[in-house]
């Protein structure tokens, strides 16, 4: 069974541009989570989608947005890129909404570099 897949693996953008990151969850998983991991730091929660709806978002500005498609795949969009947005962006998927016995599986991440 395929795991969580993210694309692209690496992405280089110029300050002010927009970046689009993609995630395909494990088959059967309806929830997708996005996290930002700056170099040497922990995972900061960005967004949680379930059944096509945004269920929760972390403390990030509105230029971080996303959506979930009917097939449960997801996109993360970052507008007006800033140098500080350079990080590893991780996507995870789980069965609906992380009930107490639900495990989240992570993809390998997209390394975004803003220059």
């Amino acid at each position: 069974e395929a795991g969580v897949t993210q694309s692209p693996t690496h992405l280089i953008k110029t300050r002010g541009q927009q970046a689009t990151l993609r995630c395909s969850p494990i088959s059967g998983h309806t929830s997708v989570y996005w996290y930002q991991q700056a170099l040497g730091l922990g995972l900061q929660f960005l967004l949680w989608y379930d059944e096509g709806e945004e269920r929760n978002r972390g403390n990030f500005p509105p230029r971080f947005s996303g959506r979930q498609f009917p097939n449960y795949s997801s996109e993360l969009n970052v507008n007006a890129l800033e140098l500080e947005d350079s990080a590893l962006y991780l996507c995870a998927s789980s069965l609906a909404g992380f009930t107490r016995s639900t495990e989240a599986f992570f993809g390998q991440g997209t390394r975004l570099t803003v220059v």
Partner: protein
Amino acid sequence: GESVGLHLPTLSVQEGDNSIINCAYSNSASDYFIWYKQESGKGPQFIIDIRSNMDKRQGQRVTVLLNKTVKHLSLQIAATQPGDSAVYFCAEKENYGGSQGNLIFGKGTKLSVKP
């Protein structure tokens, strides 16, 4: 903001020794906790989880202890091996609407195993 933190940012142990990684959490309502292992260049991998109605859970070479009184979580690794070298994150499930929620991660502890 972050509600989960770690006492020690780095830990160096001798191969064969036992390792203990500690974590403090602040949300007494959290009902589910997970330990993840992240190797360089990879996404986090699930190690072990524990629900709030348990104090201890054992896996293969790993044990998680939960002390709800002081809101403390620990991961014990028996007979630490070089392959255990990684960054370890604890995470708690932030409840958002019933039993569902997203994970909030701590900053991580880097475990280095000396041969």
